[in-house]
Structure formats: structure tokens, C-alpha cells
């Protein structure tokens, strides 16, 4: 018999729920709000059969471009041949998690704004740029 390349082929382990986490999903998944421009991770919840993305998108991170009643539109990069296409998919909220990839820069923005405001109050000019680690001296070995 031929191999079969259906929509959910080769997803026996990928879409399986983790050990001892089968059954009902926690309610906090449904209480999260997503705004356009947020970064989200796509992670399939095998127990919710509706609104599942294709297995390619499992583990990808993208930005929200649309919010509907029960689903989120996510823009994900996909390499097709010799180019990368920004693909727009719609995924139900159960298969989406807020991504922490953007968290660090958002915190840094906030802190830098505070530092700049303080410096302005003092009348100084400061640079909030990150500096790369320079060559190490013998003392630091």
C-alpha cells in the first residue's frame, strides 16, 4: 500500500498530548487576549480538532494580523523553493501561545524610556545603546 500524504500524515507523535495532560484543556487558554502585531507561537493542541494549522506550522512563531471570533490570523514565514513567503493562516486560539521572543526588547524599551526621562530631568545626555563585549583582559581569565 502507498505511503499516503494526507493533511495530518506523520503527526502521530507531533499532535499527541503530553504525558498525563490529556483531556480537558485549561481555561486560561480561552481567557487570553491577542492584539494585532503581537508575536505568537503556533503549537497544536491535538485534542481540539477544529482550526488546527497544518503540521508545518507547528513550532513556528509569527505575528498576529487578524482577530476573529474564535481564531487568530498569524503571519508565518515559510521557505518555498528559493524564497521565503509570508504566509497568512488562521488558527484557533487553542493552538496558539503568546510568544516570549519579543519580551526582552519590550522590557528594554520601557527601561530605556525611563532612563532617558531621568537623564533629561538631570540635563545629561546618555546613550542607551547595548555595547558588545570587548576583548578580554588577562585579569578576567
Amino acid at each position, binding site marked *: 500500500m502507498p505511503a499516503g500524504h494526507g493533511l495530518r500524515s506523520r503527526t502521530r507523535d507531533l499532535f499527541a498530548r503530553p504525558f498525563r495532560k490529556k483531556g480537558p484543556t485549561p481555561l486560561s487558554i*480561552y*481567557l487570553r487576549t491577542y492584539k494585532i502585531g503581537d508575536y505568537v507561537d503556533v503549537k497544536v493542541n491535538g485534542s481540539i480538532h477544529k482550526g488546527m494549522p497544518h503540521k508545518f506550522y507547528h513550532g513556528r512563531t509569527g505575528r498576529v494580523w487578524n482577530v476573529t*471570533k474564535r481564531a487568530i490570523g498569524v503571519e508565518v514565514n515559510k521557505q518555498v523553493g528559493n524564497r521565503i513567503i509570508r504566509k497568512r493562516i488562521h488558527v484557533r486560539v487553542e493552538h496558539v501561545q503568546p510568544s516570549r521572543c519579543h519580551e526582552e526588547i519590550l522590557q528594554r524599551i520601557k527601561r530605556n524610556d525611563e532612563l532617558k526621562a531621568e537623564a533629561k530631568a538631570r540635563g545629561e545626555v546618555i546613550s542607551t545603546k547595548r555595547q558588545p563585549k570587548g576583548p578580554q583582559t588577562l585579569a578576567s581569565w
Partner: protein
Amino acid sequence: MVFVKAQKSKAYFKRFQVKYKRRREGKTDYRARIRLINQDKNKYNTPKYRFVVRFTNKDIIAQIVSASIAGDMVLGAAYAHELPHYGLEVGLTNYAAAYCTGLLLARRVLKKLEMDDEYEGNVEATGEDYSVEPAESRRPFRTLLDVGLVRTTTGNRVFGALKGALDGGLDIPHSDKRFAGFSKDSKQLDTEVHRKYIYGGHIAAYMTTLMEDEPEKYQSHFSEYIKKGLEADGLEEMYKKVHSVIRADPTPKKSEKQPPKEHKRYNLKKLTYEERKAKLIERLNALNAAAGADDDEDDD
């Protein structure tokens, strides 16, 4: 042989997945809860309120609750044990009391949101199906009925509370199929019967039948009613008065009790290691003494 086979091995426990805590306690139906709480994502942070009605053996709890990740937030609550403040002393878990509790909660919440003048609701309870009409300035307060784990049969008291809240002015999507007095054959709500239930007519009827047929059972069953001097005819009057008092001032009354200075202990205090050792030595001595006494008796 029987015992060995029934053992639960270590592997069984390692692989056992417990259900959610409130499912183990049998208190929450998560399938229903997901559907009640789920808010459209394109409504973002707009709260979705549920009108929660729960019955205990001696009380009725009605709450307006919205869900959040930190926990459910209660907007307003009304209990049947508050009804004595409004003039209802007995029968605190019947259909009429459920109606009063729902009405109390609705008026309380509307007052809190300063919508109580716009949305009077149905002042005269007639038992027919009443839905709030939108007023000019603000849309009515919308909430969804949450019955919990109750079997929703026709005439259930949760629908009494629902009717109370509807007449109080809340906007709750419903149908009259489960109100007391709905007839399956004619597929219509008999408003007279429903009105009877709201004013305790079914209780009054039972009281009169018992008084005629079994006066002793009447004395034992309705002893509290007799003590308060309530007759079968006076029930409707009483409930009408309670409704008007509720509408006049639905704000909760603060109780005058001070919290007790010393915290009462409800469970046994845990003993320290020395105390437990001492207890054991005492028990062993007692056993030995008793055994010694038995030996003496046997010798004799």
C-alpha cells in the same frame, strides 16, 4: 488469590492522571464552563458575565461572575439567608424564595451600575415571559445563566431564580420551556400556574391539603410557618411585600458582628515529636498494665 489480583501497582499510580480538582470534587462542569466563559477574541477584554445559581440544602446562592486568569471576579451576590432582612423568614429554598433571590441580585447589580432607574423590569410578577427592552441611553446588562450541575427539568428552582432576575431587569437569553407551568403537550407556558409558583401557591395548596387530611404532619412539616403565624392564604401577600421591599432598597446590609478576637480552631492541633513519643509510652504502659491484670486474673 483474590487480594493479589486487585492490587494497584506502582506503575498504575505513576501513570494515573488526576482529573481537575473541581472535577474530582464534582463541583464544576468544565465542558459547560468553557462554553460560558469563552469570549469572542474580537471583543478583546470585554467581560462576559454569568448569572450563577446554586442551591445548598438550606440556602440559595446567586452571583454575577466574570472570569479572569487570576480567578473569577464576582460583581454582585445575593443569598437566600439575606431574605429575612426583607421580610421572608421561612421557606428559604423554595421556588418563591429563588425568585426573590434572583430579583434581589438583579436590583442590587443594576443599582451598583446605576442602571436601576432605566431598567425597572417587570414590577408586577405575572408569570408570563418578560424580556427587557433596550432603553435609550444604555443597553441592558447582559448575562448568561449558569446552572452548574443541576438537571434542567421543567419547573426547576434555578429557573425561578432566572425569572426573578429577568423581572428585575437583567438581559438573560432564555426560553419559557423550563418555567414551572410549561405544558409539554400544548407547548405553551401556563402563566397562571407560573404565577402561582412565584407567589408560593404550590406551598399554600399543600398546606391546606395537609391541614385537612393529616394535621399532625402539617404541625411537624410547617412548624416554622406556624411559629411565625403564616397561613396558606397569607403567603401571596407576604411575597408581594417582600418583592416591594427588595425593589425599595436592594443594597446589602452590613452585619454588626465583630470578628471573634481569638480564632476558633476547627481541626486538631498537630502534636510535636516529643508529645507523640510521650503518648506512645503512655499507651504502652496502659497496655502492659492491662495485660498484667489479665495475667493475674488467668492465674487466679
